[in-house]
């Protein structure tokens, strides 16, 4: 029997005020974290959300920065020529080896992730949560897109097949930059090679990837606010019935899976896509399941469904 595959989680490590030597050592040390199934991305820190901050503590500004981050509960690592114990935060001496830095990073990240939930894979969709609807540029490797959720558009900036972008969207390692001014957005748009509805992007990514785009509350009830804008025929056929049921009333994921004969994984992917596109209504009160109401579908209807390639025999036998 093979052991279950361990998922690779992702962490963003911010660095501030380090010289080239220490940035290089930090990057090498971070890459070694893959041994702990952590894919770490080292970024110059500009106040963005990070999982760990590594900063020089050789001046008062750096020291204050580290103390403030530490007070806020962010794991920090100081690099300093001064006496480490005087800082009051974890640190390594200036000139520390890759091994020393790696051991500190490992210890700090694992301690902060005792639940195993903190460093979830940094997919495009998780990164988007930080943008809060503002236009942003996202890139991972060769894939580069502008997402303007308010304008309901996703713009591809590299000539890569759409399907490849959809598959990449659920992988870890995305970097996000907010596009604050119109000029920046316009500059990006000048490289546009294709544009797709945001809902199409999310739902088709959900259909292509095995994990839900966003986590789903398995105990909550939710329904669909509306049918998503997805290129016709690109949604999996087995999603139609659970989606139709969610248009009618709120469901708990396990109830919906059971009632529609759909796997819980599929239901979670539907709900994750709906959450991503703001089509998930979690405010609706649960509705009592009409047990024993009987199946009012005629044999004639079943034959029509069959003619169109649908088989509802497993679905909604409540």
């Amino acid at each position, binding site marked *: 029997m093979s052991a279950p595959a361990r998922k690779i989680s992702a962490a963003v490590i911010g660095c501030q005020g380090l010289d080239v030597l220490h940035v290089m050592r930090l990057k090498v040390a971070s890459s070694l974290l893959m041994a702990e199934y952590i894919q770490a991305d080292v970024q110059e820190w500009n106040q963005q959300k990070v999982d760990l901050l590594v900063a020089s503590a050789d001046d008062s500004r750096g020291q204050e920065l580290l103390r403030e981050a530490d007070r806020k509960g962010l794991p920090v690592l100081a690099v300093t020529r001064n006496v480490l114990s005087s800082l009051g935060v974890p640190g390594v001496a200036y000139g520390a080896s890759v091994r020393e830095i790696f051991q500190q990073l490992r210890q700090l990240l694992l301690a902060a992730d005792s639940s195993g939930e903190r460093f979830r894979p940094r997919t495009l969709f998780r990164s988007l949560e930080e943008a809060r609807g503002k236009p942003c540029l996202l890139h991972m490797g060769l894939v580069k897109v502008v997402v303007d959720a308010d304008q309901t558009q996703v713009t591809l900036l590299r000539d890569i097949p759409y399907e490849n972008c959809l598959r990449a969207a659920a992988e870890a390692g995305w970097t996000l930059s907010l596009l604050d001014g119109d000029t920046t957005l316009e500059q990006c748009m000048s490289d546009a090679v294709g544009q797709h509805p945001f809902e199409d992007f999310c739902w088709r990514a959900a259909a292509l990837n095995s994990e839900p785009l966003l986590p789903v509350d398995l105990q909550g009830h939710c329904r669909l606010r*509306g*049918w998503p804008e997805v290129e016709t*025929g690109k949604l999996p056929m087995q999603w139609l*019935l659970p989606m139709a*049921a969610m*248009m009618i009333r709120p469901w708990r994921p396990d109830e919906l899976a059971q009632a529609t004969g759909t796997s819980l994984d599929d239901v979670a992917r539907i709900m994750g896509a709906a959450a991503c596109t703001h089509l998930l209504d979690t405010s609706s009160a649960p509705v009592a399941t009409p047990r024993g109401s009987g199946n*009012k579908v005629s044999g004639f209807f079943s034959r029509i469904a069959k003619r169109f390639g649908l088989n509802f025999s497993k679905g909604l*036998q409540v």
Partner: protein
Amino acid sequence: MATKLVFVGEMGAGKTTAIRSISDMEPISTEMPISDEAALEAFEDKSHTTVALDYSSIELGDGELLHVYGVPGQAYLDFMWPIVAEGAIGVIVLVSALNPRALPSTLTLLEHFRALAPEACFAVGITCQDREPAFRFTDFRNALSQAGHRLPVMWVDAREASQVDFLVKALLSCRYAEAVA
């Protein structure tokens, strides 16, 4: 017993084409040359339009037929609506993205046909996406939801059998879910 599938929509929405896409037989239509100059300009690739009904059928096996109707959405033909709506298992409203009155027209048709066929299930197909890329799908869908029409809404190229087929699948899924959920 519900044995009809109805397509309804204004001129140029693609009813005849959609029915042709999924039927087992060539639809029987009453087509006439378009006489209205403005309409001729608006529908540049269309010289004829259906003035009465489209009718076709889909075989289910053992001689059973699903009757498929296309009904013009123009108000002056509304005397035909109750006749066709009676016994409809589902009603698909087709609307062209080129129609400047797409939303009010769809709302009117949904309201009328919901009253005429309360047992039927509904879906909306928006056609001519390629000719009106600026059409705001989400605004349109959200407006329908706000008006109480929570139903499948999707782009559909009426010339593509697979797309019309998918729209019908979504409609049937809703019908099934409504019947038993």
